[in-house]
């Protein structure tokens, strides 16, 4: 109940943020632009629309999570609204979870709007609603949940600008770390490989949530990949949230 009250208040705050609508507008423009790109491309037009559309949803969703998430906790401390909140019978972890859920719900609504625009554009070309796209969007949502947790984690101890830089770095590393795996396969066994493996385990691999190519090209995806990616998303998010709670638990609000 208390967590939901904070989540509801966070949703009210986030939904009034102008950045959200600016990003939503650009996301819509990019999804629409996929139609122009499709016209310029030789080959399957629909695949281009799907590719660019899903990539736009993923990118702008991540930007929304980072730009709003990094300010959420910091603003409460900076504006001193946290004084009255923490003096009420609420645990600090409940406050953080409320913030997280509030933003996740906001992102869900934004994702829903972007998906409607995307599916409507697709419908104009194929005259069918491509429900399979929702699978890719579901994994984008899981990725956004993780990025939100990371943004909130950084927001617990650093300013919004610094938190945004850290979170964007997390996003980029997460999408490039798969290259590290290829490198490891080519390395000879030894200390270097072991250290590399440890680093690869610690670094996030956000490509686990990327099913765009398979869905767009109708490639078969074994169920174990879905299960693995879902668990990866859930546990990584929980891990980052627990880390945030530990940082937040003993923080002085000066």
């Amino acid at each position, binding site marked *: *109940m208390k967590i939901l009250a904070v989540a509801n*208040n966070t949703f009210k*705050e986030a939904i009034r943020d102008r950045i959200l609508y600016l990003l939503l507008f650009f996301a819509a423009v990019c999804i629409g632009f996929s139609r122009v790109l499709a016209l310029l491309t030789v080959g399957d037009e629909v695949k281009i629309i799907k590719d660019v559309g899903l990539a736009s949803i993923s990118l702008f969703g991540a930007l929304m999570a980072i730009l709003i998430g990094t300010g959420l906790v910091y603003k409460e401390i900076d504006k*001193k*609204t946290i004084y009255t909140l923490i003096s009420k*019978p609420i645990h600090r972890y409940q406050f953080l979870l409320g913030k997280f859920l509030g933003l996740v719900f906001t992102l869900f609504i934004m994702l829903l709007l972007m998906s409607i625009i995307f599916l409507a554009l697709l419908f104009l070309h194929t005259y069918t609603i491509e429900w399979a796209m929702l699978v890719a969007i579901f994994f984008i949502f899981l990725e956004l949940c993780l990025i939100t947790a990371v943004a909130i984690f950084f927001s617990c101890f650093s300013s919004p600008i610094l938190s945004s830089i850290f979170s964007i770095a997390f996003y980029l590393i997460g999408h490039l770390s798969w290259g590290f795996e290829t490198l490891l396969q080519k390395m000879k066994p030894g200390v270097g490989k072991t250290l590399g493996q440890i680093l690869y385990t610690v670094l996030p691999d956000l490509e686990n949530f990327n099913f765009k190519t398979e869905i767009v090209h109708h490639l078969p995806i074994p169920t174990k990949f879905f299960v693995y990616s879902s668990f990866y998303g859930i546990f990584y998010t929980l891990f980052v949230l627990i880390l945030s709670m530990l940082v937040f638990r003993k923080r002085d609000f*000066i």
Partner: protein
Amino acid sequence: MAIALEVKDLHKSFKTGFIPKRKKILEGIFLKVEEGEIFGYLGPNGAGKTTTIKCILGLIFPDKGEIEILGHDYLSLQAKQRIGFLPENPYFYDYLTASEFLRFYAQLFGLDKKEIDKKITGLLSLVRLEDSSDIQLRKFSRGMLQRIGFAQALINDPSLVLLDEPLGGLDPLGRKEIRDIIVRLRDNGKTVFLSSHILQDIEMICDRVAIIVQGQVINQGKLQDLISEKILFTEIILSGIEKKDLEGLGECLAADGGRILLKVFDEKKVNGVLEIIQEHKGKIHSLIPRTETLEDLFVGMVTKQ
């Protein structure tokens, strides 16, 4: 009388500077606030008043010391369930309307919807904001924010209310309104812990006070015990008499428009002044014996420290 708030040997320091250095803010605070009283916590700026309150509320963690609120550990939810808090310069969620704002805080106390609606109506009328319930807080004036802040502090019908500089930045009318609410709270059996540096207000409403200077409580007790009842001097405003006739009786501070303001330090000389006035058929406009005020006590102690 039961104890509403007890603070024992509270220490707090902060690290400051690029090369962190420890700065001591609180150096062994002891406080005892009894149930049903208005307790004034006085001190100059930077003495540690707000830091003490933040420790009590669990916003910052003390280095050392014990805090007990209404018999519970200060960090427990049972303690927080029974306290209300109004911060200095209230900052609130300015995108919420007054009633949305109160509803949010009420939900944190687990109140049901019917109860919440009843509380919101009652509190908005207590702080005279019933006509502004649908206005966003960003459009509120300073005084209105202070009043809605008061309402959120009372949303759970608390037994102990902590107020950090509740009268700061308000006009005289606003200060009177807040003072009246504080006194009404005490009359309803609540305990009020109030920090301030506006001494006149504290003197008017507080039952007991503690004075904090440089992180230490240097005096604590009932107002009448702290302030001596001895007359320091008597101020007399009179007319119809020449200034030279009063020589040797007191200090003549002003003599404008035929009126003389005379400050008489020796109590015995007051009768002498009255006799002269009678003799010369003069007129007394006012005669005020000045006893020690809280301000005198406060200034004396802070200077000594």
